[in-house]
Structure formats: C-alpha cells, structure tokens
C-alpha cells in the first residue's frame, strides 16, 4: 500500500457510512526492529495546516483552543480500526465518538440550530 497515494487525504467513512472528514495525517511508530508501522490516523485542522507550514499548524492549534470545541489535540483514530482502504477509508468506529466530528457538531449546535429551519443535529 502506498500510504500517500492510497490513504493520505482520502475520505473517512464510519461504520454507518457517514463521512468523518479526511485523513489529515498519519502517525507512525519507528521501533528498534522491524519496519515503521502506521499506528494512528489524524483528522483535524492543525495537522493539515502543519503540512503547509509549522507556524500555521501552531496558529490553528492556538485558535482551536480559544473557541469551538476546544480540542487540545487533533482527533486520533487507531489504525487497527481501519476496515478497508479503497475509494474511501472505511473505519469500524462511530464517527461522533472519535472526535473527528467535534467541529461539525459544535457548528450545528451553536450556530445552525439557532437559525429557524436549521433542524436538529440530534434528530439523525
């Protein structure tokens, strides 16, 4: 598997086929013996901005702790939860439990649902 070609930036789908964002980054473990292994998938703003410039990553992280869901770290999904890698990366997780949808839920609850006709995120 080509990690960059086949995994990085691919869409993530949870066990109910709901989109969870995209693979922003990968965490690899480099042990003393054996090849490096992918241990986690990273989802979230700071990881993405870091790929353009580390300063942008730090800025994104700082802003993310001032408002919104105020995550201290990007969402980290264990590689062991990956079911298949094809057109999308299918995961054996509930999207909402991973933290990958924190921003979506926050925007829905704090902004969209306050506008008439916005609906209710919990009705899903």
């Amino acid at each position: 598997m080509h990690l960059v070609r086949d995994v990085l930036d691919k869409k993530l789908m949870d066990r109910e086929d709901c989109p969870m964002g995209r693979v922003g980054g990968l965490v690899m473990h480099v042990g003393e013996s054996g090849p490096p292994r992918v241990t986690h998938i990273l989802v979230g703003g700071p990881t993405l901005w870091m790929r353009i410039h580390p300063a942008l990553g730090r800025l994104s992280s700082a802003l993310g702790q001032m408002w919104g869901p105020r995550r201290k770290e990007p969402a980290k999904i264990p590689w062991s939860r990956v079911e298949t890698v094809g057109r999308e990366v299918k995961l054996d997780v509930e999207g909402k439990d991973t933290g990958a949808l924190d921003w979506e839920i926050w925007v829905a609850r704090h902004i969209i649902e306050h506008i008439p006709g916005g609906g209710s995120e919990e009705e899903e």
Partner: protein
Amino acid sequence: MKKILQLSLGIITSVGGFLEIGSVTTAAQAGAQFGYKLLWAILLGTLCLIFLIEMSGRLAAVSKHTIVDAIRERFGFPFFFFVLLGTVLVAFMVLVAELGGIGFALQILTGIRFPWWALPVSFVVWLLMWKGTFSLIENGASLLGLVTVSFVVAALRLNPDWTSAASGLLPTLPDDDKSKYWFLAVSILGASISPYLTFFYSSGAIEDKWDRTYLPINRVIAAFGMTFGGLLSMAVLIVAALALRPKGIQVETFQQAALMMTTALPKWGFYLFALSMLFACFGAALEISLAISYFFSQGFGWNWSEDVEPSSDARFAFVYTLIIGFAAVPLMFGVDPIKITMMSMALTSATLPLAIVPFLFLMNDPIYLGKHRNGWISNTVVGVVILISFVLAVVSIPLEIMGG
C-alpha cells in the same frame, strides 16, 4: 424515461443557467464598441466550456469523485489549499457581481437604488439555499432563466447581416483601441469559462448519483446545453452591435445596457431585459454559492448535500451563510457591480490555469478514469484555450494600462 427527463432538464439547465451578469456585460460592451469583431472569443470560450463540462460529468460518473474530491486526494492538502484560495477568491467576486446584478435589475424596475437591495436579495438567495433542495434550485432557477431567450428574439428582430456576423467568428483586429479589444477578449473568455460551473456540474452529477450509463447523456447535455448558452451570449453581442454601436452608446452602466432591448423590442424590451438579468443573476448567485460551499466541504471531507437539513451538513451550510452575508457588504456600500464584474472576469481568465491544469491531469489519470481517460482532442482543445486565455490576460492587462 428517467434519463430522457434528465436530458431535457439538463439542457434546460444549461440554457437557462448560462447567461449571467458577466457574460451579458462583456458581450454587450464588446458589441457596442467593436461590433461583431469579438464573436470569436465567445465561440472559443463556449467550445472550451463544452469540453470542460463533459469532462466534469465524466469524472463524476466514472470515478464517483467530484473534481474537488479528486484534486484533494490526488495532489494533497497544500496544493488543494492553494487552488482553493485562488479559485474561491475570484468566485466570491463573481458572487458579489451577481448579487449586484439582481440589485440593478430591481433598481431599474422599481427606482430604488441597488445598495438598498443588497440585504434583501442576499437574504432571499440564502433562504433558497437554506430551505431548498438541489433539484429545486437547479431546475427552478434555470427554468426561470429561459426568459433570456428574449435576447435571441431581439437579435432576430434587428435583422443582422449574417455574413458580417459570421466574419466575426474569426479574430480580426479593430483599427483602434486594440488594448481595450484584447482586454474585452480576455474578459469574455473569463465570463464563458467559469471554473465554478465545472465544480457545480460535477457535484450535481454526484448528487444525482450518475454512473457510466449517464456518459452519453452527459455528452449531449454538455454539447447542446453549452452551445445554446453560447448562442445566447452571441445574441447579446449582436443586439448591442446593432442597437447601441450605431448610436455611439458604450455600455458603462447597467442602465445603458437596458437600452439595447428597448431598441430591439420596443414594447416589452425593457421588462424582458430586467427580468432576464434578475433571473439569470439569481440562478448564477445560487450556483456560485453552492460551488464555493462544495469546494470547502468536498475538499475538507465535510458532509455536503443540498437535499438534507442544514444541521445535517452544518459546516457546508455555515460556509454558504457566511459568504452570501459577506457578499452583500460591498454592495451595501455602493461598490459598482459592473466594475467588479469586469475585474472578476479578467481575473478568472488569469487564474484559469490554477483550476483547470490539475483538472486536466486528473482527466488523464487511469486511477480515476480507467479507459474513459481524455483523448488527444479534449486535452488539446482545453490546453490550448487555457493557454490562450492566460497569455492574453498577462499581456492585455498591462497593455490596457500603457494605452496600447
């Protein structure tokens, strides 16, 4: 049966959704100043757009990816962000121009100046996005946009010399004002080849769940729909050439543009012009708002669909709410939509390579298209036209400054 219905709707969509303030302003200015001499720019732009639209539909139907999905996955986030920045900034300017076009149409109908219309118009556009479905937006706005066929009627009524008009399909330089001529050519190309149309079309194909069986329909929609649309633009140019040029009228303002229809169709021309601009710009504003939201949502992997409640795709809904709100601001302060239109059309031409070159790479990638990759004709037509647009933009803009 469903495919035939889709085909008819698709063509109607293309026809009704083609004209907007950019294509009308640039074609009207071109006709008023240079007669038929810039018809070739509309022809070239339309030809390129036919290929681009067909490619957008093909990519979606075969790979089940929208263009933006594919750009992000194939080229990575940093490159995607670079494309997003350039494309969205220009698309935003076009959105301001379209909202301004709606405001202007209401101004000439009611007498109330366009800055006062900025907020109400933005609200209505937003409301349709908030409550409407993709089908309602796509089909409703485009069916109303069919009133723009009145430009064709006007052109026929003015009885043009078709031989002279046909000669305009080949580039011929004017005797003077060459720098303005090339600047208008660039603007016409930018008005015709709008990248947001390709993003919108590929997203629509995914929303409508197209597969390979839709490839023939896709070709027909692209060819016939865009051709009819291009003919509408040509009709505007011809009407301006016959109604305004002999009287020395330049199209510097929206109010002057209306005069081309009052000459061609005395009884109803004024109202047909106002309604044409109203519905055409409305449809375009909806398409651009959707296209920008699609760009963010698809690129970042958010939930996106016009067919669900806003809370189910909260960030997608938030993006279009923000951009429509921001787009009203310059208009409220009286910034001239015609000037924004001309700037944004020229900028579109200059930034076309940014949006289209990655797209061309994708269309030749076997991972996405398999045996349905581009042939040499598609690659050549699109590549050449984009190169021409870019070179013209780079050369003509400084020439316009230096006075030719």
